[in-house]
Structure formats: C-alpha cells, structure tokens
C-alpha cells in the first residue's frame, strides 16, 4: 500500500443544481455512518468531489472496501502523495504501477499542473515521467486514447498527487436524499430487492413485517432481521416493525370465504402498514410485487387490494422477471438469506384456489360482517420495533 488518500467522484449528484449541497451533506453523513468503526478516516467534502484521508493505511484500505456499496458515488481512486520533485514523482509512479500486471497493457501519463511555479512545464513532465515508467515496464504500450493504465499526476503546492486506478462506485443517490418510505418485507426473495432498488434512488427505509406466532417461528423473524441488516449495509440503518398478526389471520380464516381470504389478508396488511407509515413519518409504501407472479399480483388483485388507501404504493419490481430479481438478490447478498426454509404468515393459511380476479364488491361485502378496525389498531400498537444493524455485542463473545 502506498496510498495516502482516496478521491471520490459523485454520481448523479453532480448534475443537481441548487440542491447539490443537501445531497453532498447526506452522502457525507452516510459515509460517516459506514466508517463509524474507522476512527482515523477523515472525510473532506468539496463541491464536486470528496477526499478520504487517514494516517492509518489499514483503515484507509478498509474504508475503500466499503465504498463500492455506498450509493451516490460514481467512482473513486486511491491517491499516493509525494514531494513535488521530479525524482520523487518518478519513484512513486513506479511503485503504484508495479502493483499491477503491465505486460501488453496500453499506457498514458496525464499531468495537471496546479502549481505553476514547478520548474518543468506539462509537456516536459509528461515526457520525463513517461520515459521513466517505460524503461521500468518495457511491456507497456503508449496509447493516447483510452489507455488501460492512465497515470494521473497532479502538481499542487502541497506536493504531487498520483493515481493510476479508477474503481466503480455503486451509483444512485445518497440514501435519505429522496425521503423516507415503509418497505413491506416478507422474507421472500422479492421484497429485499425492491427495498434495495429504492435505497439506490436515495430513499431511506423502515420495514414492516407480519408475524403469526406460533404458526411462524422465531427463525422466520430472525431471517427478516438478517435481510434488513443486509439492506442497512447500503448506507443507512433500517428499522423493522414486527406486527403481531395471528389474531387477524385467524379471524379472516373464520369469517371470510376461502377464495377471497387472500385478498382480504392483503388489504388488512396494507391498512396496518399505512398506519405505521403515518406514525413513522414515511411518505410512501414500497412492496416487492411483480405483475403476474402470484394470484395477489394480477392487475385485478392489485386494484382490489390498493382500494384501502390513497398513499403512493411504489412497486419497483412490477415489470421485472423473476430470474432477473434473483440475479439482483444474489448480487446484493439477500438471496441466501431469503431461501432459508421458514414459513411466513402469507403461506400458512393460504387458500388452495385464490381468486386471480377478485371482485371488489364481493370482498368488501364479506369483510363487512366483521369490524377489523379495533384489531388493526391493536396490532399497530403492539408492534415490536427492531434496529438494524444490530449491535455488535453478542452472546457468543464470552465463549470465544
């Protein structure tokens, strides 16, 4: 390691106008949260880029490893600093290029001379450094357009700054810069992916989960907390509200005919979610629904379910194929958690022949025999809220 700082380039934020400062501040706050264990790493935010610095190389390296999962970063480059002296620059250049395979690679030196008092002009510098690098790595081929290795040298008064690498960031917008929403998190494959995609657009999340103990197990709930924890690694903590749902599910099973019970269940879930959303100051509800995947996800079903609220329901996966959803789930590390084999509340009382085209009047008619409102209020009141990421102290520490 020769790096002394890391240059961070903004993604879409840099296209913003007057609100830019707000976005940059949010990104900085998210990074601070991600680096909370790395006490020596300092973040310096400028108008169009950011710098990480630290005297501790290991921590700087660890910070760099976290950067690819933080939304709002377009790309980043580790930078090596040395004296603004030709010999020192040459030596540094050899060191940082020497980390990589050079045989047969195309190469170019790019100079930025901010300190105009430096004795050599840009062209001379370019030649001197380029020639030195080429004698050391004879396998390199000089190419001006789109070289594979671009050695960038900037001469400032404080010293010379060199980099030869550009790493891709996660893109998107800093989480929290686009408001707050409530994610309906089931424990399946889709809903965590929907949450991830919203976070990528800058939306911070609370999650809501319906539990029906003793039919659903502690492990099913544990799984949901693990999913939320995974999501929280993308830049902002995710709280999970677990709703006790057993009584409502049993009432539905007893009161509503089998073939529309699924629609009623979803409608009640949505009503509960809407109340929690209001209490948690969230603006919208996010679901992992994808059109046509199951009976509750036909346009007719969605219409009948959606009738209970006018809150925006965001469905980032609505037109995504299942295989593509799985691919994202694998990439973001939620797939292995989602496929753990525990029943959730949606599957335990699920009818064998749910209506794919439920008639709204019928659903409303059957629901009309029971007053669900007090049960809904109680469920919201009795919710248990968990914080993720969960704290590091853990019951195994004394053993290990």
């Amino acid at each position: 390691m020769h790096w002394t700082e890391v240059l961070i380039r903004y993604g879409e934020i840099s296209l913003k106008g007057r609100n830019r400062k707000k976005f940059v501040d949010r990104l900085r706050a998210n990074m601070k949260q991600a680096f909370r264990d790395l006490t020596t790493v300092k973040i310096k935010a400028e108008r169009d880029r950011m710098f990480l610095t630290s005297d501790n190389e290991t921590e700087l390296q660890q910070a760099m490893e976290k950067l690819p999962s933080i939304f709002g970063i377009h790309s980043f480059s580790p930078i090596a600093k040395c004296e603004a002296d030709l010999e020192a620059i040459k030596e540094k250049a050899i060191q940082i290029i020497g980390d990589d395979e050079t045989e047969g690679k195309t190469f170019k030196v790019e100079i930025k001379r901010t300190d105009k008092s430096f004795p050599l002009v840009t062209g001379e510098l370019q030649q001197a450094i380029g020639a030195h690098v080429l004698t050391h790595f004879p396998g390199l081929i000089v190419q001006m357009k789109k070289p594979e290795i671009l050695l960038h040298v900037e001469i400032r008064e404080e010293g010379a700054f060199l980099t030869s690498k550009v790493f891709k960031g996660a893109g998107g917008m800093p989480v929290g810069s686009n408001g707050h929403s409530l994610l309906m998190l089931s424990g399946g494959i889709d809903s965590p992916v929907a949450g991830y995609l919203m976070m990528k657009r800058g939306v911070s999340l609370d999650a809501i989960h319906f539990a029906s103990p003793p039919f659903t197990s502690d492990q099913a709930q544990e799984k949901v907390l693990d999913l939320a924890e995974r999501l929280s690694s993308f830049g902002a903590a995710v709280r999970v509200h677990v709703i006790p749902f057993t009584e409502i599910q049993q009432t539905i099973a007893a009161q509503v005919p089998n073939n529309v019970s699924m629609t009623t269940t979803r409608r009640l879930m949505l009503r509960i979610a809407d109340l929690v959303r209001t209490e948690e100051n969230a603006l919208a509800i996010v679901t992992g629904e994808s059109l046509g995947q199951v009976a509750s996800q036909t346009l007719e079903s969605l219409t009948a379910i959606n009738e209970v609220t006018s809150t925006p329901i965001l469905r980032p996966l609505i037109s995504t194929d299942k295989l593509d959803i799985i691919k994202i789930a694998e990439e973001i590390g939620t797939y292995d958690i989602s496929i753990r084999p525990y029943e959730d509340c949606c599957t335990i009382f699920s009818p064998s022949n749910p209506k794919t085209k439920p008639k709204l009047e019928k659903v409303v008619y059957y629901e009309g025999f029971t007053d669900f409102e007090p049960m809904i209020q109680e469920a919201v009141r009795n919710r248990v809220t968990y914080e993720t990421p969960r704290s590091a102290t853990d019951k195994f520490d004394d053993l290990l």
Partner: protein
Amino acid sequence: MIYFDNSATTQPEEQILDSFVEANRRFFANPASLHKAGKEAEKLLERSRQQILSILGVPEGELIFTSGGTEANNLAVIGFAHALRHRGNHLITTVVEHPSILQAFAYLEGQGFEVDYLSVDREGVISISELETKLRKDTILVSIMHVNNEIGTVQPIEKCAKIIHSNSRAVLHSDTVQSFGKLPVSLQGDSPDIITISGHKIHGLKGTGLLAMKKGLRPQPILLGGGQEGGLRSGTASAPNAVALAKAIRLTESGNDGKRFRDWRKRLIAFCGQFENVTVLAPEQGAPHIISLSFHSIKGEVAVNFFQENGIIISTSSACSSKSKQASHVIEAIQLPEKWKSGVIRISFGKNNKEEEITQLEQTLVRFIELLKRGQE
C-alpha cells in the same frame, strides 16, 4: 511433576475448558437442524470459523473443522491429490513428514500417483534446489511440514512457496501442527496455500483440528455422509469443539513465549556442550520450543524413565514412534551416527514451564550423565 513433553500434547487451558463446557451446555443442538437451537449452534460454529480465518489473515478463505491433525493431514493430501488429478499425477513431499502425511502419500502411490520425496541434510532441512528440480509441469500438490515434530527443524516454507508458485501450478500444503503459535503462520503472501492446525498442541482439546486454505481451493472429501462442512467433511459438526479451537487459536496468537523458549533452548545447548557422551540435535534453523538430545550408546527410553523417577516428563523422539524399537524415520533421514541413534530424547517447552524447571532439568541431566559414565567405565 515438571512437564516437558509439550510437542506430544499440552495441558488444556482452564478458560478453554470453561468455554467448551459452557458451549456444550448452551449450544448442544445439531447445527444442521432447522429449529432455533440448531440455528444458534450453527451461528456459533460460523462465528468460530470466521474468527480463525481472520486470525490467519484470510477472512474469505475456506476452513474445515476436523477431528485433529491426522484427519486434516489425510484430507489435505488425499483430498487435494484427487481434486487436482485432472491437472497432473505428480506429488512431492519430504522424507521427514509426520506419519499422517507419509502414509497418505504411500496410499496415493498405490492409487497410481507418482510421488517424489525430498531428502534432508544432517540438520533435517530440505534443499530448495532439489525442490526446484523435482517440480514438474504435472506436479499438483507439494506437502512440506513447517516444524519437524522430532528434532524441531524449521523448513524454509516461504522460499518453498515462492519457488512452487512461480514455477508450477501445484498447491502447497504445510503441516503447521508444531509451528502454529511458536512461529508466524498465516495464509497470506508467500505462504502455504493450505495448513493443518491441531487444537491439543496449543493448550486446546484433543479431537479438535482444522484444515484451512486460501479462497477458491477445495479438496475432495474423504468422509462421506450428510454433507456437513459444505460437503467437505461429513459428520455432525460440533460447535463446542469449534469454539474451543477458535479460543485456543486466539489465546495462542496473543501469547508471546518465543523469546523465553529461545533463551532456554540456547541455554540448554550450551549446557549440554560440556558433556562428551551427549550430543544435541540442534539445527541452526530450529524451532524455539523443541530441543532433542542423544546419549551415547544408551536407549532413549532409559533416560525417559530416569527423568520420570526424578519428577520430569520428557519423551523419546516422538510420542507417535516411541513404542517402536527402531530409530525413527527422521533420525534415519538425518543420518545420525549409529552410536547416537538409539539414545534420542525430546524436550519440548510449553507456556506453563518456568525458569526454575530448566535449572532442575539441568541438574537431573548432570546426575544421569554421571550415572552413565559410571556404568560405562
């Protein structure tokens, strides 16, 4: 009783025993079970695995818990020979390896693999140039121990790794059972690709051990069954065993007995130098905690008994070969002159040994040598 047989086994440390008992009490469930208790045990098992891989410097690496060093060594040799057979048929090891390695290679020879054995010099060290000439295009596995269990020779394992990695596609396994905790052992940089660690040699428990390897390497399993340990080692996994091993490894890492041991070893080498009928098998590249001596024309067993009568436990060249009448394969390999061959004893230090015990050892040694002189006169 003074205990100087730490290379055979070490006394389990109290806090490791406590962890083991407590983990058996709280997390006895089968980690493969679906219920909550099973999941907890699985989590504990994985936490232990992660802790060990982090200490070894390869958080992304692969770790298989085994019943000890022998199983891990068997799995390394047989498992990797079979897993890499599509690349070639040639294997290399040394003549001074532990029997759990040598017999595994002998078994593979029976299976049609070609094995080359590296010789050693008078101090038990292999030759890098011999390794270099024996490496071939179709060499798939090299196994070289880090520290010899009988005479303490340290093999130049980093140099071996460099030569092997730059001249062949072979993977390097190293039996680090005797070196882990005494010398730096990791899986980073110019290092072996696969290592064996045994719990009871580092104040942990018998029946615990592991095979750790760099990311992307996978042996073919030698135990078949329920597919535990990612299919690499079937048999009900034991979270308490994993905890005990992880704790032993952590405590070993934080301890620092190297300097103490080196001073004692130096002291004993100098001390023994004054007697004619004792020779020290003290390779210049020797591990700090092992020192082997040989007495002229007398059986090592006689010395072991005499020391025991005087309250000091030592062993003949190795516990594993101590019941055999012949000189061990290591003693043969270093071509110790005939008159010294049968009288080899091994003294091995552990963290519980104290300075005074070395003094007592010296005094007992003097008495034994005087007795020998009288007997031989």
